């Protein structure tokens, strides 16, 4: 199975004026690797989701996400922003941004992996480890280790 996340999908110096810019920046990385076939189409789907309810979670997390026909493989992109990006959480901007891209008709096993990632995000220890990661590969290793044996 292809990797859920690679070092190319990690941006430890994410700079974005707002959440739309942050999502576009991360999604462009997925588009460059053909994980997303139509960048604007995918962004529209993500924006639809974001408008239903902000995806910010307290504790500095933003998880923009969409199931979209423009996604080829379930993929995760990660951005770390020193200044923070507002994702609508009550306690302020997010410094950790996870972009989750799932194909519209994804197989349950793929979606299971995304589900287990989502579950890890709730754990404070996981967040702290991501904040301390020194480079992109460290983030990838951390995530692969957490979803366990895959």
């Amino acid at each position, binding site marked *: 199975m292809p990797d859920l996340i690679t070092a190319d999908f990690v941006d430890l110096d994410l700079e974005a004026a707002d959440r739309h810019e942050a999502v576009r920046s991360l999604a462009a990385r997925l588009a460059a690797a053909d994980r997303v076939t139509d960048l604007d189409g995918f962004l529209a789907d993500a924006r639809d989701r974001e408008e*239903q309810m902000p*995806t910010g*979670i307290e504790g500095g997390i933003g998880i923009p996400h969409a199931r979209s026909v423009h996604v080829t493989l379930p993929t995760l992109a990660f951005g770390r922003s020193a200044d923070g990006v507002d994702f609508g959480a009550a306690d302020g901007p997010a410094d950790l941004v996870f972009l989750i891209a799932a194909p519209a008709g994804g197989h349950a096993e793929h*979606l299971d992996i995304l589900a287990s990632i989502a579950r890890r995000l709730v*754990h404070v220890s996981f967040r702290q480890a991501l904040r301390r990661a020194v480079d992109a590969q460290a983030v990838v290793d951390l995530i692969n280790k957490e979803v366990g044996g895959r």
Partner: protein
Amino acid sequence: MRIVAVTACPTGIAHTYMAAEALEQAAAEAGHHIVVETQGAAGAVRLSAAQVAQADAVIFAADTEIQDRERFAAKPVVIAPVQRAINHPRELISRAEEAAEAAAGAATAEGTGPGDAPEDVTAGAGADGTAEDRGAAVGGPAHGAPSEGAGVHPATRLRQWLMTGVSYMIPFVAAGGILIALAFMIGGAEVAVKVDGGTWQGRTYPEVTDLSELVDRAGYAGVLFKIGATAFSMLVPILAGFIAYAIADRPGLVPGVVSGLLAVATGAGFLGGLAGGLLAGAVVTALRRIHLPRAAAGVMTVVGIPLVSTLVMGLLMIIVIGEPIAAAQRGLTDWLDGLSGANAILLGALLGLMMAFDMGGPVNKVAYTFGVAGLASGDLEVMAAVMAAGMVPPLALALATVVRRALFTDSERKAGEAAWLLGASFITEGAIPFAAADPLRVIPSIMAGSAVTGALSMAVGATSRAPHGGLWVIGLIGNPALYLAAIAAGVLVGAACVLVAKHFGRRPVLEGAPTLPGTTSR
């Protein structure tokens, strides 16, 4: 304590699972046993019947519809948006503790015998109320909530049920009403006669029964009218169906919708549908309390409850409600006929009261038919008064929503925007959403407004040669300037009465019902 929870979110790939994890962590910390059903894209592992039966409390953390929520009927329930579970899982766990204790307390207080399982308890005590206080009962999960919370004031619950029905009905009112209004604008007042049959300016049109002939005989305006009228025909069934749905969840839908359809067929109108919806919800709730052996219980849910509740409601609507209404209509018609030649201004006021009372219901129909009969016999003043009075309720409420926005819910304000056009087109039904949500305040107020307009229209001797069309047939109105003044006066009186009535004994405006999926409440 044993807890079961269901988490769900619109996309089903992130929040559903984060909420589940957060709840599991918080429950473990508090020393509780929890099982979470994640209704997400990866497929849900369903809670077993035993897990549900053993649970002391249920948590719904969801921004979408919970699937098969009737499994949890009669359990103490805590309802919250999915974000709440992620950000404040401990709070939900402690609310579940409170809900379970309250339910246990209620069981003792009600003297439930020791042999009875806790399932008998009227559940959700405190939980629903708490959720509302915190503004948590927003979005999908709140609707159809079996809000049986003992801590919630009965009037609040009634209003929530009504608002659920109203919020589902409003799009039908808006879409249907605007299409009908467009039909009148394009095709003139005769479009209704061309489609539904009747006499217009001495010419008789048969009803269009074969829709393939619709364009030829009534033009595209006729098509618009027919589409609008079809949407309108669902107005009362949707209202009744979703009132019952709010009370009794999914099993309430069938008897509710059927009651609504029968309310239309028997001419009982929206008040009949409103009563039918409430009764259907009550019947289903009552049927659920009948205890059957486990083997029979499954059949009861799938076949028994829909069958029995629909049969009971159907008989009730046709025999108990339908016949008296028809008799009352005959009586009212005779009485009105007897009043012919009496004081014209009083007659106008009376017709106004009747037009606004039930907006398309039996009393309104009698007044309208009286007007049309007058038209046929050459008395154009009665028709003018009836039409003017019928335009007042939607216009008065549209005005009221603009003057004091805070007194109305979001969905009512949206209904108010459409009500301008509906009122101007003499589509009195535009006021039904407001009247159904708060009948005791709204109906008397708009009756006052319509009575003023009816009386003034007669006083100034306005005439109308059209039975439909509202302002779009102003060319067929005699003495149009004073006619418009009469309408304006009634609108002002009606709006003022609504605002005063809503101000007294004012309750917090609670969107008991959800915004529809895909829309936000802002």
